[in-house]
């Protein structure tokens, strides 16, 4: 079960986390008449974590509550994310949360979502 600051936000439905690569910033310089280039390593910047999943509830109101709960965490502050495998990702904040379609009605109410985190080293 994934948690954000030990809070269970996602367990109403299945979800999975995809970790992007750490991004390193560089400065490149080239010189006329010389093969190759000078690359200055400016350090590790950040990486993007993408959580995709499905929220499910018995009523539309409950589902709306689940969505609002996640939106409340889009506060620009650092949080600690733990994924389904128990991997820990400290110093993450929410960049974007969106449902990837309208709320749908079947056995209860449900919608799929994508949540983008940014992690700093």
């Amino acid at each position, binding site marked *: 079960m994934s948690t954000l600051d030990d809070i269970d936000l996602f367990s109403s*439905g*299945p*979800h*999975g986390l995809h970790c992007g690569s750490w991004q390193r910033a560089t400065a490149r310089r080239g010189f006329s008449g010389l093969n190759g280039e000078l690359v200055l390593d400016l350090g590790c910047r950040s990486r993007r974590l993408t959580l995709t*999943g499905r929220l*499910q509830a018995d009523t539309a109101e409950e589902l709306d509550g689940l969505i609002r709960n996640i939106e409340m965490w889009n506060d620009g502050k650092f949080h600690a994310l733990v994924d*389904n495998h128990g991997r820990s990702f400290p110093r993450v904040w929410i960049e974007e949360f969106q449902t990837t379609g309208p709320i749908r009605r*079947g*056995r209860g109410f*449900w919608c799929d979502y994508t949540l983008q985190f940014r992690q700093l080293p």
Partner: protein
Amino acid sequence: MERYLGISSVCFGQTALGLPLSVRISRQGQVEAVGGDADLYATSVQLARPVVAVEIRTRDTAAAESLVLAQKADLSWLVGPAQGGSNARQAVLSGAVLVTIDVTCEQNAAAVATLRFVAEAPDGLCDPFSCQEVP
């Protein structure tokens, strides 16, 4: 338990479809099954909006050919009681949209028309299919 035998009549709007061979109603939902990254099997099985469809096979090819695709009307049929039964069964598919007309002619066999309908629910909530016992 009431049992039924034989199709007495089939009507699509004002058009009677004589000599019916079979009526088949099907409900089909598109499965959207997903699981989390730690799951071996799907842990959430949801269905997209189910489609209620009816297929009618009839030897009345002239009536079938007079219909127009996308035509919308109520489709009804009456199934008679089996031996020992007393009630017939009247079924109605309201808001039936004609989506397929197939007419097959074969050597040494009567021509058969196959009509497929998909129901349009008026308010998105009520089941477009209904049936009742009729004496």
